């Protein structure tokens, strides 16, 4: 059996990659993908703990998070589409009109 530390390390690594992507990328699509990474890092954790404790509740939650992620992507893509229409591009630093 693989010890849970490895899962946690994998999850932390994926999470940090996602966070790095959100903080550094300017392309909205890439940011969306980074968010997916972070969400899946959390999923890994859920499944790992579920496996360690022998309780399937965590896996159920994993499934829910996937469904949630699908919904989130649908909205995210919609936002990206509108962004493209209004600002002729998907660079998030261009869209700065929503401020004082």
């Amino acid at each position, binding site marked *: 059996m693989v010890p849970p530390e490895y899962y946690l390390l994998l999850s932390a690594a994926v999470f940090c990659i996602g*966070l790095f992507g959100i*903080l550094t990328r*300017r392309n909205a699509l890439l*940011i969306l993908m980074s968010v997916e990474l972070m969400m899946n890092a959390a999923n890994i954790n859920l499944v790992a703990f579920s496996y360690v404790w022998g309780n399937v509740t965590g896996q159920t939650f994993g499934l829910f998070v996937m469904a949630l992620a699908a919904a989130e992507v649908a909205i995210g893509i919609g936002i990206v589409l509108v962004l493209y229409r209004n600002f002729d591009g998907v660079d998030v630093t261009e*869209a700065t009109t929503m*401020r*004082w």
Partner: protein
Amino acid sequence: MAGILDFAPAIVLLPFVSFLVALAVGDRLPKGGALAGIAATAGSLLLAAATFLTVSGGQTYNATIYTWAEGLNAVDLSFGLLIDPLSAMMLLIVTLIAFLVHVFSLGYMNDEGETGLPRYYAGLGLFTASMLGFVVANNLLMAFMFFELVGLCSYLLIGFHFREPGPPSAAKKAFLVTRFGDYFFLVGVVAVFATFGTAAFAGDGSFPVLAEAALNGEAGSVTTFGFAPQTWFTIVGLLILGGVIGKSAQFPLHTWLPDAMEGPTPVSALIHAATMVAAGVYLVARMYGFYALSPNALAIIAFVGGFTALFAATMGVVKREIKQVLAYSTISQYGYMMLGLGGGGYVAATFHLMTHAFFKALLFLGAGSVIIAMHHNENMWDMGGLKDKMPVTYYTFLSGSLALAGIVPFAGFWSKDEVLYETLIHGLGGNPILLGAYAMGLLAVFFTGFYTFRMVFLTFHGNPRSQTARDPHGVGWNVKAPLVVLGVLAATAGLVNMVPVEKLLGIKGIDFLHQWLDGGYASLTAHHYGELIPYSSSYIGSEATTVALGAGISLGLALAGAGLAYLLYDVPEPIRHTDRLGRIKTLLYNNYYQDEYQVWLANGVTRPVARAANKFDGGIVDGVVNGVSSVSLFSGSRIRRIQTGVVSNYAALLTLGLTALLVAFGLLGGWFV
């Protein structure tokens, strides 16, 4: 039972309807709404007469019509009607005068081609309605509200000719000066509510009855705020008296009244005889059961009244304009009424209120007739010799003048004499203040006789002193008819209460007014007031001697004044004898510089205080408010810089925040130990 008294609200509502009619469609009606006003006041007059007859049959009426604010453990505020002998009598007087003034206005306003008649008749209607509402009010708050309405209407009517400079200014002055008094009245009304929890005039739970019970030591729901009941009732009484002094033009708030002569003459008649000025005295009479409990308040009323009577009479001596003389005579006569009330002569003062209403309305309408004839020149030195040209006006005016001067047997003699007599006997009973007030009132009789007949002789006797006086404008029936009605009343109204005759000749039962005012609610009868007043009576010799002496002295003084005027002014070409008074004339002509001193009070005292208050408000109160807002604005303008609109920055802030939170938890939770 649906008796005639159930229709009493209509007495008030009819003139109000005529106000609405004149306001809405007056410009499309013939005579500019005058006919609606005449019909309404005639209806009110008939109803008031019916009410009077019903009340003389012993019926009274006291009911709440509409409660407009009520609550648990709180006072109820309501409108209601109180019809008792006093208010029934006053209703009759007010509706009669208002009716005659409406008829007279046909001659004075319509026939003279005035513009704005709907506005005029609307004002008259509302004025009459407010005064009638005030008369029938069954509680102090309702009385206050109609008191204010009366003031508003006087403002509207005095300023009727608003395009000229004088009337608007006079209207504002009338409004502000009476408002100054009404301010105290309002505080007094609140004090009555706070003290007694009710402001009803009549009934077992009325405030005069509660006050009487409290003074007798009975525990009740009376809160006197830590004062002795006697002291507190005096304070409350004096607060309400503030409104009375303003409205009834008593010293020192009399200054608005002479200026109010800027209004049309019929309005002056209405203001002076039946509404507005009468309201103040009527209020004291209405709540006399309360004032009678306080010797100090009564003494102040008497002294102010006596002083005002003399003070105003001296000013009336030197005036050039006929309406100015009448204005000062009004102030002086209301001084007598206050003297009567303060001196314990409730019936006497009410009597004088009644006779004065007749003869002063008569004199003003007579003056209005003269003014029509003189093409609106009011200067008596341009008149003269009008006696033969306008006999109806002359003889009726003479009747009013004899009544005003107090010459037997005209109305004014009986009432003024009774006022002075009551003051005298109560003063002799050990009250030097009343004796002082009596002396002033007695002296004023002489001046009254003098200025009244100076006015009559200058206006009607001698040779005409101007072209218009040689060929005066004629007056119509609508001017003469009211004059004749009032002329007869001024000559005969005194016969309803011939107390001196009763006392001297021993004929019982001719003091009808005494009997009249003894009817109605037990707590509101003249008899009850007689038991309440804190005076004892004393006589010079016997009662009959005192009566004869008092009447003789006052009649003698009146005749002396009239005789002096006869000697000086009943000549073909009178000269200005008052010039001989020199500087005193200047002082009198300028009304003792009362206006100047009040303007100085406003400019020299009130204005700096107001300016300081304004500075405090602008500097400190506003400064704090502005400080709070500028701190918010400044910090907002700094903090908004983190709102860049760039999503990446927000994400970074979120991450940093989360990290900081984790570190903080870690440090506090001891994870790193």
